[in-house]
């Protein structure tokens, strides 16, 4: 049992095979894509492997501490930031192989022309508590 984060990037991942921006798809293609994503999440709920999934707005703010008694400093958004996360899904699966299998399926979501996007998803294991048996 291990949790993995599936990260979807707006920017920062290698280009997808079917790399057409979403605003150039047909409305039907967008509907099909959204349905695929929803069905995928619903299926993982059914298999008892779904933990969480969220989408993020592309524009964010950078915030940092600016010393005692001063309000935090904000900056951005920065157009040049290389890595931009679009959203995530957290899964709880029996093995790394299963996590890869699911990420592969998610990457097959249909895009332009109704064909799979072949988008690169980033798979990151959660750090966990250490095991009880240590020697």
């Amino acid at each position, binding site marked *: 049992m291990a949790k993995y984060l599936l990260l979807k990037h707006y920017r920062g991942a290698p280009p997808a095979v079917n790399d057409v921006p979403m605003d150039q798809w047909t409305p039907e293609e967008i509907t099909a894509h959204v349905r695929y994503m929803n069905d995928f999440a619903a299926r993982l709920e059914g298999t*008892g492997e779904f933990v969480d999934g969220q989408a993020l707005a592309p524009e964010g703010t950078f915030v940092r501490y600016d010393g005692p008694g001063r309000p935090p400093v904000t900056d951005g958004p920065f157009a040049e930031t290389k890595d931009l996360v679009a959203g995530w899904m957290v899964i*709880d699966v029996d093995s790394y192989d299963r996590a890869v299998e699911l990420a592969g399926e998610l990457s097959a979501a249909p895009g332009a022309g109704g064909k799979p996007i072949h988008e690169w998803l980033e798979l990151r294991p959660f750090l966990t*508590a250490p095991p009880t048996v240590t020697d």
Partner: protein
Amino acid sequence: MDGDLLRRLIPEVIGVLVRRGADFAAAEDAVQDALVRALDVWPADPPRDPKGWLVTVAWHRFLDAGRADAARRRREDLVVEEPVPGPTSEVDDTLRLYFLCAHPSLSPSSAVALTLRAVGGLTTRQIARAYLVPEATMAQRISRAKRTVAGVRLDRPGDVATVLRVLYLVFNEGYSGDVDLVAEAVRLTRQLAAMVDEPEVAGLLALMLLHHARRAARTTPDGGLVPLAEQDRSRWDTGAIAEGVRILQAALARDRLGEFQAQAAIAALHADAPVAAETDWVQIVEWYDELVRLTDSPVVRLNRAVAVGEADGARAGLAALAAVDPAVPRHAAVTAYLHERAGDPVTAARWYAEAARRAAHLAERDHLVRQAARLNARPAG
């Protein structure tokens, strides 16, 4: 309310419903409903006959669920000839549930979830919280697991080794949350050991008790990891150690060694040392040799290299490590440790940093980063 009593009754109550003609999945659902109700009602109004109460409520739930008129009709035939539940059949019922819930057709996470619910008597919500997943996800995992074992007949014993693997998993990954899964694994293994006369069952129980005994000394108050050598041994639970050693000795006397007994023997040798420096590493290496023979596991070979480093010196440990697959988790951490023991802090610091990057556990990573920082902060020369 005695929560332990309540949970001990759950497998027996499932057994009664199954004997009355309910299928396992429906019986288990009904008993879970009764359990949740008991948790509500019992604190204010404890029943005189807890098991009778659970059977009555669960049976009504089963009927209300209206799952199968056929089952209801069957019940009318079967209830008449229902055998009087005696102590023997309760043990058999509970034992059969252990085997069913650890059935080899289940994935490890499904077997764990089903065991905790049907044998352990935990609620879906408690299990979900313990494993940090949504309750709906855990509910689905459990109902799928029940569908998977739906066709399995409950009348023949399974392989106890599969049950032990599930219990070990609960123990080893029993992250301390709302529900103390480590203690729960000990309870379930103790219950199993009372029903099954197998040295390896006793071996697993001993292993759990001996590791559980160290619990208070394993972590700092803020959750940091304390390595075995640095633990305050006065905080080890001597009662659990004594019990673990006694159970282990009786198991070893049967002369049917298995991996859990061998692992427990290693834990017992650590428990036996009043201070880390007095650890009998030579004997520990011998037990690791047995474990390598029994399991041929690369993780065991890695731990053996650590023991060799203590018994015969860090150089010998590094030589033993050279034969271990570098892809094994914690390989870099052991490399760092042995290099430091061999008097090479610069190489050790580099390996500690690498080990931190590869760590799979949060507290372990923090510990390794701290080791690297400690060595890097040494004055030059």
